[in-house]
């Protein structure tokens, strides 16, 4: 997309119309400004496909999350040429509470050395006594994560993910070694737990849109073998290897052309 064309897409009337079906004009103006700021400060976002930009911005309206950087609920992120709407753990919790499917929802990581006990079955029990640590440097490794939701009639539901399950979610994400898992492991693990907990809760359209948007670009949704193959080999064209050909006065020819030459057997190259 040419420079500044993204502004045309952001201010597209169709996007505005979709926004106004769900939220008021004040919220639209506010979110569009945040979106524009995000694009202005990110060259990779500006190069994303028009359709993906449109989808991402419309999803902000449908989920009710905000792009306000101070709130840190949702972000626009470029991935493989597509603009993706990504939610933080905080954003997901806000969407769940706003859509009135839960009274409260929260997730916590369990660290090595914490007192942690949970039981499933007819009388589920969850007990977590965190062990305090002196500084971030002394922080023990994460061994599990859990998410708890309080429903309106007082019942609490929770999911617990052990380290192996967290790692499985990390590996199935599109950027298992990206900045999110590398620098914000706790937050990413909590988000995974909230996403899984959502499956046990009464469904809401807002939350479904958010979880689908996340799964579409972040894992849990199946990645095709074709995508995996391209990831393992890269789609970048490797520069063609050239060799000097004595048959052509040492002019450079491609290695493919060289290997097809009938005189390759006795060739000094």
């Amino acid at each position, binding site marked *: 997309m040419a420079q500044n064309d993204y502004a045309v897409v952001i201010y597209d009337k169709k996007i505005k119309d979709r926004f106004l079906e769900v939220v008021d004009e004040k919220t639209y103006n506010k979110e569009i400004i945040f979106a524009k700021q995000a694009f202005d400060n990110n060259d990779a976002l500006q190069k994303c496909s028009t359709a993906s930009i449109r989808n991402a911005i419309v999803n902000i309206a449908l989920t009710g999350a905000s792009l306000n950087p101070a709130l840190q609920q949702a972000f626009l992120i470029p991935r493989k040429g597509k603009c993706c709407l990504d939610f933080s753990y905080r954003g997901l919790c806000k969407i769940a509470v706003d859509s009135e499917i839960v009274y409260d929802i929260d997730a916590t990581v369990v660290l090595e050395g914490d007192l942690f006990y949970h039981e499933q079955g007819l009388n589920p029990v969850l007990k977590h006594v965190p062990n305090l640590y002196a500084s971030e440097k002394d922080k023990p490794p994460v061994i599990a994560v859990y998410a708890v939701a309080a429903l309106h009639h007082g019942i609490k539901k929770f999911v617990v993910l052990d380290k192996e399950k967290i790692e499985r979610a990390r590996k199935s994400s599109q950027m298992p070694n990206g900045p999110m898992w590398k620098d914000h492991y706790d937050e990413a693990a909590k988000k995974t737990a909230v996403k899984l907990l959502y499956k046990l809760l009464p469904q809401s359209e807002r939350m479904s849109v958010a979880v689908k948007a996340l799964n579409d670009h972040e894992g849990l949704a*199946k990645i095709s*073998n074709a995508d995996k193959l391209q990831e*393992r080999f890269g789609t970048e064209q490797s520069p063609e290897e050239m060799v000097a050909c004595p048959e052509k006065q040492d002019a450079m020819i491609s290695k493919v052309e060289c290997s097809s030459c009938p005189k390759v057997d006795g060739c000094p190259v």
Partner: protein
Amino acid sequence: MQPGVYPNITSKDYHAMTDIVSNSYLGKLAKVPACAKLPQKETAAMIFGRAFHSYVLEGLTAWNQDFVVALDVPTKPNKRSTQKTIDAYTDWQNSLDGKQPISLDDFTTIQQMKNSVMQHPFAKNLLSDGISETTIIWKDEETELLCKVRPDRIPAGNKGVIWDLKSTSNASRNAFLSDCIKFGYAREGAMYLEGFSRAMEAKYDDLIFALVAVEKEEPFRVEVYTIEVDLLEYGYGEFHRLLQIEKVCRDHDFWPNYQNSGAISLFKPAYLPVWEYDSLENMEKAIMKGKYNGTK
């Protein structure tokens, strides 16, 4: 032969291990068990495919050890040929030194096909370093039969990928998908991945089977395909079903030339029309009207 990975087994030795189950053997068994016991006849298409594989995967030097470009091929003698013709043909055959002759036209086609693969932006990456034509042998736990595969290329760098090169008349998605079913590429993929996962102790689900399809006619279209999970599952099921059949045949030392010992119903396929008497009546009227022009 013990289960394991054998990088130095030649193609001839690999095909000589007839007591070990291969994908091509299962392909014949799938038709009818008796078919599996028939000797394999090498068709012109198979020789072309072998020459193409050797040229792309091993290069010209290795190709020259097994193949030779035949420029002046003498007339093939028949029953009424003179002794001179027979002698000329025998001399020419002796001069080949046991190598397989390939016509100049076919050799040019093979060269163009290779160039086409090397110019494909992604296939080129797959063709980089790796091990070609390694034989993997393993024992199926259920039937205790030995199975063998010989994937065209296992790329270097522990990428968990196996790919095969396929020359085809049509490399488009739909046509190649039908080739996958017809020629058992899905079953082949499932066998490759199972053999590889056992030999290398890799996780089956993490492995990818890819196919590089190259057309045999200009402009030598090249496409890279991956066999996705559902198709692999189909291939896996077919592979193990055929292994069970082979096991029963071996146990009883009997390979029947039928699949069903009773009678099988044939039903009208949905695409055939239902003949109606109305249409016959209409047709009769039309014939009468046309022939007698309304006079009868």
